[in-house]
């Protein structure tokens, strides 16, 4: 699942990940929409979320996800250094620094889908 309020980044990330895993990738423009989807049983073993978004930010989504599904992989992305430290303190599995490159998305797929084939992106 990809969550970002910037449509350019969101669509590109979904496009690249869809290509890599050959599966449909759910996407949402804020944490609240993503949370509603997950609460209703929507599938997403890996959540890649921006930090600064309206309605519900990435930290709140991370905290809710980890409280309900401790095993769910949550990756936060931001261009702000302080958010990286906060992500680590709040239990994020990984952090994607912006601006990122296509190869960084490939690295994430390699790490969480190919090397650890348990969870799959959806």
């Amino acid at each position: 699942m990809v969550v970002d309020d910037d449509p350019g980044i969101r669509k590109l990330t979904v496009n690249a990940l869809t290509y890599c895993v050959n599966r449909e990738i759910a996407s949402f423009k804020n944490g609240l929409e993503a949370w509603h989807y997950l609460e209703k049983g929507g599938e997403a073993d890996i959540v890649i979320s921006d930090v600064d978004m309206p309605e519900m930010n990435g930290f709140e989504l991370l905290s809710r996800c980890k409280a309900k599904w401790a095993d769910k992989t949550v990756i936060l992305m931001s261009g702000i250094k302080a958010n990286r430290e906060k992500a680590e303190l709040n239990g994020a599995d990984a952090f994607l620094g912006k601006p990122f490159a296509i190869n960084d998305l490939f690295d994430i797929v390699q790490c969480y889908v190919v090397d650890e084939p348990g969870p799959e992106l959806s």
Partner: protein
Amino acid sequence: MKRFGNDLTSPDTEMDACHIFRMRLYLLIVMVKARLAGYPVGKFRKQAVLENAAMLHRDISKIDIRFSASTSSNHLFKERVKLLSVMATAMISDDYPLGIHRRAAILDNIEIITKTAFPKQEFALVHEILKAA
């Protein structure tokens, strides 16, 4: 916690339209090279290629992007990107045959675009990711 992407030491954290355009172009080149190398194309992978090609074709006319390594005119470069998006669409649609000459034309176009837009980058195809579709 694992770390990916920018190390955040640079003050430039913008992912503006030009940055996204470059990423889409890089992705399309990987997609085309992977197809030429014979990697499988599943339903969603095919959809991703068609969507990326269409976005690039649409955005290239609107975007003001220049490359320092450009040896040809900006207009020619844009036409080459348009051509690549058409080539990718035709290749992935399976409706058109891919002969020796067509393959050579695609590779030639990719080489020129790469030299202009990504002069210092290598396009390594990630086998483990691409082999499964």
